[in-house]
């Protein structure tokens, strides 16, 4: 499944993997319900470690970080391990996403 707009792409075509690409600065966490619906579905149906790849996500605002945190909380409820793949060259990612580790012990963050 792919959700594509002028600003971002949410790509979930492979099992156990989704990618967030572009800039996601939507008005509220609720606004992320639709774009993150493939992520939610992917977590619920994951058969193994579920990877969320944000290495091509240039910006994510605080509403997006909140929405992403809710995906991590969902993964905890479903007891699904998550690998969050981040990019060292995108400065805010390491700063802002490391805090999500406190939400779920099976959240693994890898940086490339």
């Amino acid at each position, binding site marked *: 499944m792919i959700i594509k707009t002028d*600003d971002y792409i949410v790509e979930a075509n492979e099992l156990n993997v989704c990618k967030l690409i572009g800039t996601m*600065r939507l*008005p509220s966490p609720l606004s992320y319900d639709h774009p993150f619906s493939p992520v939610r579905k992917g977590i619920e149906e994951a058969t193994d470690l579920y990877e969320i790849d944000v290495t091509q996500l240039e*910006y994510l605002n605080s*509403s997006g970080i909140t929405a992403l945190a809710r995906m991590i909380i969902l993964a905890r409820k479903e007891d699904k391990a998550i690998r969050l793949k981040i990019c060292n060259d*995108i*400065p805010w990612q390491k700063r802002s996403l490391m*805090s999500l580790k406190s939400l779920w012990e099976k959240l693994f963050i890898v940086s490339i």
Partner: protein
Amino acid sequence: MSLFEFGRQTSIVWSGIALEKEPFFSHESSLNFKLDIGNIQHWHKCSLISNFIGQYFSESYEEKKQEINSMVSTITNELLENAVKFSPSSYRFIGLSIQEKKEYITVLVTNTSKKKHAEKLKHCLELAKSMPLDEFFHKRILFNAENDIQNSEIGLISLMKDFPVCLGAQFSLLPDPVFVDVSLMAIINLEVFFD
């Protein structure tokens, strides 16, 4: 002292910097915007302005341009989105001012907000002084998720937690007691990039 004594301005001191004492006006360069709510509610414009601000001010720093660009854009965007969310349409304008002096970039956003929202902002800044920011972030994320809260202070907490930035706010009463003028300032310390 109550924050909202009629007819008096009061200030929040954050991290030792009092808003009225900050050498805000002795800057080296600045950009100033007056944004019409009716226009800026085309939400994408917040991002466009923030990206421009990031690119413009990072031009001065060749070595760390990408990092500073990303950081300034992120901080400006959070402050701008915050002001847009909490500005009633009856008060049309948001002020945005970005000033640069030596190793500091200061982002100031001014808007008019309902008193209850201003009080929440004040409370957030005061709480941020009382506990480790990682803990504050964690608690707020969980609370918001459990209570399905859409508008929270996660953005401001993230700025304080993740970036070399000091936040301060000033509140001024208006003749209409329902509303308050809010000035929210982020002072970004760029020295950390050049240690």
